[in-house]
């Protein structure tokens, strides 16, 4: 019986990626103490890990800190109902984002010791973050604004929104795009504009150029697709996730 419960819990965590104790209890249907006893055993065996502080505790399969951080933000955009973000990383309006972005060059210089790279990365963050506001202003499906966080330890910058996503934005002005992957390919490689004579649509091309020139890594998710730029190569792939809006993860660790 217990083995069966453990297996069910493990399968549930595997399926969800990361999950809260409440979700596990609701799924299993046993009392909270009984579920916590099983969770403790799974933790002791090293089959799962626990992250966060009460009341924001998550259980997940063993993973690196970087994978866990990425997983949390992917979870924010894949859940049907968004959980509340920490206020330090939530920018409900463009003004809040702008104020945080203004501090970014100085913070990045401290981390990278490279002034020009820090300015370029700040421009990349500005393009991605402002894109979210530009394309969803007055039209956010549920939660307005964006998530924006720099993780100093893992040397990653993350941005995410629960907006319409790239495909929904682009198909209005380019109806021949048929899916998320096609939309990402256009966004990262073709110049288009939804409001001529503005050169709107340049942003992600600029992002790609900066990432490639500086041999950084970008993972950009939208809908069921992702764009991965790594080792100066760009690939457009199915992500295996369904992301409402966009998620961008920039890995700026300098590789020599």
């Amino acid at each position, binding site marked *: 019986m217990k083995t069966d419960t453990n297996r069910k819990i493990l399968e549930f965590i595997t399926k969800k990626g990361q999950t809260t104790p409440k979700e596990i209890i609701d799924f299993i249907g046993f009392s909270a103490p009984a579920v916590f006893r099983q969770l403790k055993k799974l933790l002791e065996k090293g089959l799962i890990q626990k992250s966060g502080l009460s009341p924001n505790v998550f259980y997940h399969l063993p993973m690196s800190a970087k994978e866990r951080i990425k997983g949390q933000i992917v979870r924010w955009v894949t859940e049907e109902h968004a959980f509340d973000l920490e206020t330090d990383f939530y920018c409900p309006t*463009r003004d809040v984002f*702008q104020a945080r*972005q*203004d501090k*970014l*060059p100085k913070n990045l210089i401290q981390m990278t010791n490279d002034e*020009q790279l820090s*300015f*370029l990365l*700040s*421009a990349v963050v*500005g*393009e991605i973050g*402002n894109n979210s*506001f*530009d394309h969803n202003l007055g039209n956010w499906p549920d939660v307005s604004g964006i998530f924006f966080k720099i993780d100093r330890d893992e040397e990653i910058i993350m941005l995410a929104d629960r907006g319409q996503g790239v495909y929904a934005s682009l198909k209005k002005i380019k109806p021949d795009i048929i899916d998320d992957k096609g939309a990402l390919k256009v966004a990262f490689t073709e*110049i288009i504009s939804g409001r001529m*004579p*503005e*050169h*709107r649509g*340049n*942003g992600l*091309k*600029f992002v790609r*150029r*900066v990432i490639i020139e500086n041999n950084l890594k970008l993972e950009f998710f939208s809908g069921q697709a992702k764009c991965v730029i790594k080792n100066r190569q760009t690939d457009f792939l199915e992500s295996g996730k369904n992301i409402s809006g966009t998620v961008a993860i920039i890995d700026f660790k300098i590789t020599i």
Partner: protein
Amino acid sequence: MKLELKKFGTTLSSRPAAREAWLAMRAYVLTDKKPGEKIEVDFTGVQVLTPSWADEFISALQMEYPNEVILLPSDNRSVQLSLEFVNKN
């Protein structure tokens, strides 16, 4: 005449901010421009420039004053790359 962009901040990022900068410049600074006078755009002190800001501000300026806008050279890579993206389209 010279337009010093650092007066709008050291991080020039969003389209709405650029639009506001352009409208202010047109209403209060460019009114002093003499006919035929060149406009030098100075990027000194700007740390971060995005293609969106550049497109909204520089393209509007170039459209309003064709052949009269001179973009002064900058050694800042984000300025160089953003201008390249705006000018090649």
